C-alpha cells in the first residue's frame, strides 16, 4: 500500500521526490492536457443517467409530503393502482429499514414510515408506463396526516424537545453536540491586548448541479440488481441498497454514469435509488426516476445555516492568543453527514493560523426543513467566514494591514496544530504573496476612492480524510490495471469522476509512470462489479488517494515489464526505461522496442499482465474523542483578494475581480486546477451575494427553481484569476493536494472585508443583499452623525 507508514520513511512517490532529476522531467504531469472524456462530453456522446434507456423501462415518480411535520395516519394507494398504465405503488412499509450515510445516525427511510419531517419528504412512489401516467397516479394516492408542531427556528429546537422530530433521539431535537477545548482559552484571551467579540451568521445555500438526480433500477432474472445512479459515492450507495433492500451485496451492482455536477449534493444515498430498485424488483422491469428541479431543491443536503459567536484575543502586534467559538447549526430534518459537519465546524479552523488556545462548542439541531448535508467546503465555509471577518476586525483595531496580520499568525510547515492535526506542506505565505502582488494590494488598497475596496481572506482545507465513514482496516482507495496485447492499458477505479477530472488523473498517472501516450490509457470507473472499492468523491480525497493508488499500481506494473525486458536483453533492470511509448536501453540508444512489445515480453515471462495498487492514510489525528475527524494526510491552503464596488444608493455590491491563490501541492494539470479554483470562487461568491436557500415560515422553499434561486450567469461572474502555488506535498501523488473545495472558502469573508474597505461597514450576516447593505450604511451614517462632531472638536484642540 502506498502510504508513508507502509513504505518506511520514504515518500510514496519515491523517485519523483522534490529535487530529484525526474522532478523536472515529467512528461505528462504538470501539462495542461485535455481531459480523457473531454471530447465525448463536447460532442454529446457521453451518457448521463437520464440518457440511459432500457427496453421496456417504466418511469417512476415520488409523492411528497405537503406538511412539514405530521404523523401519517393512513395511506391508500388502491385508486392509483387501478389507473391503467400503473404497474406498482410502494410506500414506507415496503422498505422499513432505516439508512444514513453515517452508520451511527441512520435516521432516514426510503419512503416515510409513520411520519413526515419536512415538506418534500418522500411518502410513496409509483412506477408507470410513462411520466405523465405516474404523475396522474400520484394524485390518486390518499394519505391522511395528523399535523404536528413544526420547528423552523433552530433556537426553538434547542429549547424544546417535544414533539421530537426523531422519536427516540437521545438529545431531544439536538442532532449532535461537540465541545472541545485546547489550551486555556479564558486565560489566554484574558491576557490579550485586544479582544473582539461578535456574532455572525450563514443563511443556507444549495448545490444546484445542472443535472437533476436520476436513477435506474434493473433486476435481472438471475437475481442481480443493477442500479445506475447520479451519485458521487457508488460504494456507499451499494452498501445502503444491500441494507435497505435486504439483498446480499454481491447481488447488487451500482454504476455511476457520467455525472452532471454534484458539489456534495449527490453524496448521500437518496430515496430514488431505493425506489427504482424496489419497483424494478416488484415489476421485474427496468424503472427510471428523474427528479424535477423542484425536487432537487427539496432533497437539498446543502450548506447548513449557522449562527456563530466568536471571541478572539490577540497581542498588540496582532498575534492571536485564543479563539473561542459557539456555533448553532440548523441541520434540517435528518442527520445526513451532520455528525461530521458538527465536528468540521470547529476542527478545521486551526490553520493556516496558529492558535495557542482554542475552544469550540458546536450544536446541530433538527428542524422541519429540507435536510442539510455536505456542500463543497463541508462544515468549514461558515466558521471560516466568521473568523476571517473577525481577524480583519482585530487588524482594524490594531491598525495592521490585513495581509500582514495573516502573515504574522502563519502556523508554519510540518507542525501539529493546537487540536492535534498534522500539517505537512504549507504554501499559505506564497498564497498571500501572490494575491498581494497580482491584485496590486500595496499600491491600490485604501486608494480606490469611496465605494470601491479590496479585501483579503485565507483558509485551509482537508485533502482527504483519514476517517472512512464506516470503520475498517482496508485501503481507502484501490486501483487495478489491465494490459492488453494491443498496448492499451485500462485503469479500473472505484473513484467517482463528477466532472473534477479524477478519471483523467488516473490516465495521466499511468501515462507518466509507463511512458505512454495518455490516449493509450482508458479508464473504467465507478462500477462496483468491475472496479476495486474507492470511498468516492467527497472530502477532496480522490486526486490524493486514487492518485497515490494509481501510482502504486503503475509502479508495480512497470517493475514487471522492466524486469522481463531486462532479462530478455540480459542487462541490468536499471538500464531499461519506458519512455515515449518505447522501451529503451539507456546505455544502448540503438536498442528500442515499442512498449507494446515490452508488454508481450512481460506477459510471456510472467503471466497475464496486470497489477493492483492501493492507498491508505497513515495514522493521524489528535488523541481524543473526535480527534480523527478533520485529520487529513495533507491540507490545502488558499488566499483570496476580492475587489468590490458598493453602490451606496442601491446597496448593490458588485465584485469585479477575484485573485485566487491556492496551494494545491503540485498542479498535476494546471488547467484543471485553475478550473477548480475558478469554479470554487464563483460558487462562494454567489453564496455571499445572491444565493439563498430560504425556507419560509410555512416550511416552503421560497423559490425552488433556477430563476428565483439565483445562480450567477456569465454576465454576473467577475474576472477570476487563478494563481497556482505549488508546495510539493511529501505524501501526495507527485506532491499534489486538493484543489476542488479549499478555494471556495476565502471569497465570502474577502468580500465582507472588501466592503469594509470600500464603505466602512462590517457585513457579518450572509447574504449581503442590497437591503442588508443599505441598512448597515444607514446605521453607519447615524453613528457618524453622533461621533463626527466630537471628532471635529477633537481636531480643533
Amino acid at each position, binding site marked *: 500500500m502506498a502510504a508513508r507508514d507502509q513504505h518506511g520513511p520514504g515518500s510514496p512517490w519515491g523517485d519523483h521526490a522534490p529535487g530529484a532529476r525526474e522532478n523536472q522531467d515529467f512528461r505528462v504531469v504538470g501539462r495542461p492536457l485535455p481531459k480523457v472524456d473531454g471530447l465525448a462530453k463536447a460532442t*454529446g456522446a457521453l451518457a448521463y443517467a437520464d440518457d440511459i434507456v432500457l427496453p421496456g423501462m417504466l418511469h417512476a415518480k415520488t409523492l411528497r409530503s405537503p406538511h412539514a411535520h405530521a404523523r401519517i395516519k393512513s395511506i391508500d394507494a388502491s385508486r392509483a393502482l387501478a389507473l391503467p398504465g400503473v404497474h406498482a405503488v410502494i410506500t414506507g412499509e415496503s422498505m422499513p429499514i432505516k439508512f444514513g450515510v453515517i452508520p451511527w445516525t441512520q435516521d432516514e427511510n426510503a419512503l416515510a414510515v409513520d411520519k413526515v419531517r419536512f415538506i418534500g419528504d418522500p411518502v410513496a412512489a409509483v412506477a408507470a408506463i410513462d411520466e405523465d401516467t405516474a404523475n396522474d397516479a400520484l394524485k390518486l394516492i390518499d394519505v391522511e396526516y395528523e399535523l404536528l408542531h413544526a420547528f423552523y427556528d433552530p433556537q426553538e429546537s434547542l429549547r424544546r424537545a417535544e414533539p421530537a422530530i426523531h422519536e427516540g433521539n437521545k438529545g431531544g431535537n439536538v442532532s449532535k453536540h461537540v465541545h472541545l477545548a485546547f489550551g486555556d482559552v479564558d486565560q489566554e484571551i484574558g491576557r490579550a491586548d485586544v479582544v473582539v467579540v461578535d456574532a455572525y451568521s450563514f443563511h443556507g445555500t444549495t448545490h444546484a448541479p*445542472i*443535472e437533476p438526480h436520476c436513477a435506474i433500477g434493473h433486476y435481472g432474472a438471475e437475481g442481480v440488481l443493477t442500479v445506475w445512479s447520479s451519485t458521487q459515492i457508488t460504494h456507499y450507495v451499494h452498501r445502503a441498497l444491500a441494507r435497505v433492500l435486504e439483498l446480499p451485496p454481491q447481488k447488487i451492482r451500482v454504476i455511476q454514469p457520467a455525472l452532471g455536477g454534484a458539489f456534495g449534493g449527490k453524496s448521500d444515498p437518496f430515496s430514488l435509488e431505493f425506489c427504482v430498485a424496489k419497483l424494478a424488483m416488484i415489476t421485474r422491469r427496468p424503472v427510471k426516476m428523474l427528479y424535477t428541479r423542484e425536487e432537487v431543491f427539496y432533497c437539498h443536503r446543502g450548506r447548513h445555516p449557522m449562527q456563530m459567536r466568536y471571541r478572539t484575543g490577540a497581542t498588540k502586534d496582532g498575534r492571536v492568543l485564543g479563539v473561542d467559538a459557539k456555533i448553532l447549526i440548523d441541520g434540517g430534518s435528518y442527520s445526513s453527514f451532520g455528525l461530521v459537519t458538527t465536528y468540521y465546524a470547529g476542527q478545521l479552523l486551526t490553520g493556516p493560523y496558529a492558535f495557542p488556545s482554542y475552544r469550540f462548542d458546536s450544536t446541530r439541531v433538527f428542524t422541519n426543513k429540507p435536510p442539510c448535508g455536505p456542500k463543497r467546503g463541508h462544515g468549514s465555509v461558515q466558521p471560516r467566514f466568521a473568523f476571517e471577518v473577525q481577524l480583519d476586525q482585530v487588524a482594524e483595531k490594531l491598525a495592521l494591514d490585513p495581509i500582514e496580520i495573516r502573515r504574522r499568525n502563519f502556523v508554519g510547515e510540518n507542525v501539529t496544530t493546537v487540536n492535534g492535526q498534522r500539517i505537512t506542506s504549507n504554501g499559505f505565505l506564497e498564497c498571500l504573496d501572490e494575491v498581494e502582488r497580482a491584485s496590486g494590494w500595496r499600491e491600490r488598497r485604501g486608494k480606490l476612492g469611496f465605494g470601491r475596496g479590496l479585501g483579503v481572506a485565507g483558509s485551509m482545507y482537508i485533502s482527504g480524510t483519514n476517517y472512512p465513514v464506516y470503520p475498517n482496516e482496508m485501503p481507502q482507495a484501490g486501483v487495478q490495471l489491465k494490459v492488453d496485447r494491443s498496448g492499451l492499458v485500462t485503469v479500473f477505479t472505484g473513484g467517482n469522476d463528477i466532472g473534477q477530472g479524477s478519471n483523467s488523473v488516473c490516465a495521466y498517472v499511468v501515462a507518466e509512470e509507463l511512458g505512454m501516450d495518455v490516449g493509450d490509457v482508458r479508464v473504467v470507473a465507478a462500477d462496483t462489479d468491475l472496479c476495486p472499492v474507492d470511498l468516492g468523491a467527497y472530502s477532496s480525497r480522490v486526486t490524493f488517494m486514487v492518485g497515490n493508488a494509481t501510482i502504486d499500481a503503475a509502479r508495480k506494473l512497470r517493475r514487471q515489464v522492466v524486469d522481463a525486458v531486462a532479462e530478455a536483453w540480459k542487462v541490468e533492470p536499471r538500464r531499461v526505461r519506458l519512455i515515449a511509448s518505447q522501451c529503451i536501453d539507456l546505455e544502448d540508444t540503438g536498442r528500442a522496442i515499442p512498449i507494446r512489445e515490452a508488454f508481450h515480453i512481460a506477459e510471456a515471462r510472467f503471466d497475464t499482465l496486470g497489477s493492483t495498487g492501493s492507498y491508505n492514510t497513515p495514522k493521524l489525528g489528535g488523541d481524543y474523542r473526535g480527534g480523527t475527524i478533520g485529520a487529513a494526510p495533507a491540507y490545502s491552503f488558499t488566499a483570496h483578494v476580492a475587489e468590490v464596488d458598493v453602490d451606496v444608493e442601491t446597496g448593490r455590491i458588485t465584485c469585479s475581480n477575484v485573485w485566487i491563490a491556492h496551494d494545491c501541492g503540485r498542479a498535476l494539470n494546471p488547467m484543471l486546477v485553475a478550473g477548480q479554483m475558478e469554479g*470554487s470562487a464563483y460558487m462562494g461568491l454567489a453564496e455571499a451575494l445572491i444565493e439563498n436557500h430560504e425556507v419560509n415560515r410555512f416550511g416552503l422553499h421560497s423559490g425552488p427553481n*433556477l430563476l428565483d434561486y439565483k*445562480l450567477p450567469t456569465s454576465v454576473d461572474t467577475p474576472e477570476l484569476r487563478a494563481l*497556482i502555488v505549488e508546495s510539493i506535498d511529501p505524501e501526495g501523488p507527485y506532491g499534489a493536494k486538493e484543489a476542488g473545495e479549499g478555494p471556495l472558502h476565502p471569497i465570502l469573508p474577502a468580500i465582507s472585508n472588501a466592503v469594509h474597505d470600500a464603505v466602512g461597514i462590517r457585513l457579518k450576516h450572509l447574504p449581503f443583499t442590497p437591503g442588508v447593505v443599505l441598512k448597515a450604511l444607514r446605521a453607519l451614517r447615524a453613528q457618524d452623525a453622533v461621533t463626527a462632531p466630537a471628532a471635529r472638536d477633537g481636531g480643533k484642540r
Partner: protein
Amino acid sequence: MRTLRLQVNGDTLDTAAPAHWTLLEVLRYRLNLTGSKQGCDKGDCGACTVLLDGKPHLSCITLAAMAEGHEVVTIEGLMPLHAARGGEGADPIQSAFDRCGALQCGFCQPGMMLSARALLDRNPCPTRGEIREALSGNLCRCTGYTQIFEAVELAVAESLGVAPAPRSWEEQRMKPEDAQRVAREAAAALARARDEGAR
C-alpha cells in the same frame, strides 16, 4: 398524438409524439439524441439549447410541433456538419472547449457550445463582453465561466490565425511584461479583424 416531420442535423425525420411534447422530449425520447440536456424543464438553465435556423432556442419550452419547417441543430450535429464542410475532427468550438478545460461535468455544455456556435456564426470576432452577453442564458455550475470565455476566445483566435491572449492561469507563469505584450498583441489583432469585418 401527432406526427412530426423534423429536420434535424441535416436529416429529415418522421416521428410521432403526444401533441404537448416539447422539442427536447422528442429529441431525447423519440430520436435518441440525448446530447441536449434537461436541467430545469422550464427555460431557466439553458442546458437544452439547440439551434433553430442557426439561432439558439430553449428546446424544453419549444413545442416539438413548432420546430417543423425549421432546421434543428443539436450538439450531435456539430461534428458531422463540420466534417461535411470538409473540416477535421470536432467543430472548432467543441475542440476549443476540450482544450481549455471548459468541460468539467459537461452537462450544461451542449447548450453552451451551441450558444457559442451561434455567436461566432453571426459575429466571428466577439469581445469578451459580447461573449458574456451571448452565453448569459446558459448556466454553468462548475467552471465559473472563465475557461468557457477562454475557449470561445481560443476558437476565435485560431479562426483568425492569431495567438490568443494568455489564459487566467497562464499569466502567472509568464513575466508580467510578456503577459501584457501577448494580451496587447491579441487584442490588437482582434480589433483589426473586427474593423475588417465591419468594412
